[in-house]
């Protein structure tokens, strides 16, 4: 756990970057610091590993004031990832990743073995270990940066805009990767960004900072979007927050309906007057058979229309809406984790569920999906 206790940082030139910050970051979660440029996110983050020393107040990691530890030793127990990755250009990828283990006195061999494992963990082929940073793409460099921060298996990870230097597509991939890693590793992660979309995607809790290092709101993403604490927060999270919210509400509140189904290769004759969902032998949806389409076909599959996107139970509700809107029958197909048919929903039902959640008096939302 990381605690900020009445922390203030005033720089020599008089700038107050952080003003009386009180915040506690739960162990084993991803907490995001988000806010406009210059609002003190980086400064707050860097007070955790003593790259910046607070002017007043104290920062505690697992109950111990960070000032009690030698800075270098403290930092070896705290992973640190920055925007440009900051890889050492003169060292191979493998040696970059092995840095902290080597500093901590591991043997070269053991450190390199560990580095190899980590490259695999972050989804990089081990052959890349022999290359130099200049020979990697931006996304690969960021992965190496994450691997390097994880090398000594630190319980705490600080990430300062780790993905903001890569293009949006790569960034999404890296975010997904981070969530996958976190499910496996259970670190205490503080993640800084100024992108609210990224914040609500990766954060289990989000701290919104306001100019001058004030904490404007500290809440779970859903809460943040549903009930912004003030105008600043609501302005910052944006007008389209209703749609954004879909990204992390799951559809657990929606009652699934059933539709007539048929097996691939054994379509009903004559055709019924409603849409029929065609499933294969493993119960996986193959497409829709339009209502009343009469006989006369050489190959029956020609009539089956490809269905829209599928919505997997437990994933963000945005997917349910997409499934309903993209389906030829207007019915979004819901599948379970194994991809087997579970039921259907309509767009109206999804929207109604959203309305209903928004109207809920207090925050009592069910567990969130999408962070597994």
């Amino acid at each position: 756990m990381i605690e900020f206790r009445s922390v203030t940082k005033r720089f020599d030139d008089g700038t107050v970057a952080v003003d009386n910050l009180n915040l506690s970051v739960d162990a084993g979660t991803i907490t995001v610091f988000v806010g406009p440029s210059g609002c003190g996110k980086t400064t707050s983050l860097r007070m955790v590993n003593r790259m910046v020393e607070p002017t007043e107040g104290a920062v505690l990691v697992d109950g111990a004031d960070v000032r009690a530890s030698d800075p270098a030793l403290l930092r070896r127990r705290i992973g640190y990832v920055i925007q440009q990755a900051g890889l050492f250009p003169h060292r191979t990828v493998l040696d970059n990743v092995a840095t902290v283990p080597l500093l901590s006195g591991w043997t070269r061999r053991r450190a390199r073995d560990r580095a190899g494992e980590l490259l695999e963990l972050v989804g990089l082929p081990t052959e890349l270990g022999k290359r130099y940073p200049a020979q990697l793409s931006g996304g690969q460099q960021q992965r190496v940066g994450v691997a390097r921060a994880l090398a000594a298996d630190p319980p705490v990870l600080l990430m300062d805009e780790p993905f903001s230097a890569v293009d949006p597509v790569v960034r999404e991939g890296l975010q997904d990767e981070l969530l996958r890693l976190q499910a496996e590793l259970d670190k205490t992660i503080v993640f800084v960004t100024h992108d609210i979309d990224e914040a609500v995607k990766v954060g289990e809790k989000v701290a919104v900072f306001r100019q001058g290092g004030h904490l404007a709101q500290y809440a779970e993403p859903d809460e943040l979007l549903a009930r912004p604490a003030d105008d600043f927060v609501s302005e910052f999270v944006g007008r389209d927050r209703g749609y954004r919210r879909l990204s992390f509400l799951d559809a657990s509140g929606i009652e699934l309906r059933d539709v007539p189904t048929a097996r691939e290769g054994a379509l009903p004759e004559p055709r019924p007057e409603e849409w029929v969902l065609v499933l294969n032998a493993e119960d996986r949806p193959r497409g829709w058979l339009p209502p009343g389409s009469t006989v006369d076909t050489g190959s029956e599959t020609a009539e089956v229309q490809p269905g829209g996107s599928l919505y997997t139970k437990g994933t963000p509700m945005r997917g349910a809406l997409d499934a309903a809107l993209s389906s030829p029958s207007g019915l979004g197909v819901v599948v379970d984790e194994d991809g087997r048919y579970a039921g259907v929903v309509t767009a109206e039902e999804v929207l109604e569920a959203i309305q209903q959640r928004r109207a809920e008096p207090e925050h009592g939302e069910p567990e969130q999906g999408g962070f597994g």
Partner: protein
Amino acid sequence: MLQEILSWLTDPAHWSGPDGIPHRLLEHLGYTVVAALAAIAIGVPLGLFVGHTGRGGLALVGLTNGMRALPTLGLVTFLFLVLGSTQTSTLIALVVLAVPPVLAGTYAGVQDTPRGVVDAAQGMGMTGWQRLWRVEVPNATPLLLGGIRNAVLQLVATTTVAAFVGLGGLGRYVLDGLRVYAYPKVAAGALLVAALAVVLDLLLAGLQRVIVPRGLRLAAVTRRRGGVAREPERVGTDVVAGAVAREGANG
């Protein structure tokens, strides 16, 4: 003309004795090497200190720029008249001239380490010394060695001029020849000096290839090929002329 220079150079009489080519060449090389080592011993630690701590950077840039404007001949004659000894005065003048490029190259090299890299080194728990030796020094090598190459070139040239106050070395041929209008001797001396400069520079360039970490060379190539706009500070980092240019780019 060329004929005369060639016959002067190939005359066996010019290849032996205290005024023979081998002896003069060794003298020239000796002054150059001693002064270069002294300049390195002074400039490198100072440059590393200023670059690492970031303290006194402005003063250092001003000082090196000022020293660079010092006229060689003026300095040598001044020191000779003050100190009286040819050896001491020229050696001091040579070191004074060689320190700025070494100092500026070292300082610029440490400064050139990308901000994020230094930050990451600190964030990972390196101590000040570890950061200096494992990160900043390796990153400084291209510019540091560029500074040394530059210093050596200036030393070879200045040693020639120092013959004016009685120093040995290849400059003797030039100045003694000038006095009696023996043009072939003058030209031969000049050519020998130029040849020595080129050979030393090539040797140092080879050394640079060996010493500069491969990853840094790749990074430089990527930077160039990537067409990332380089700031003036980046003007030529790997060759002599460039090394001169970047030093002056300060201030």
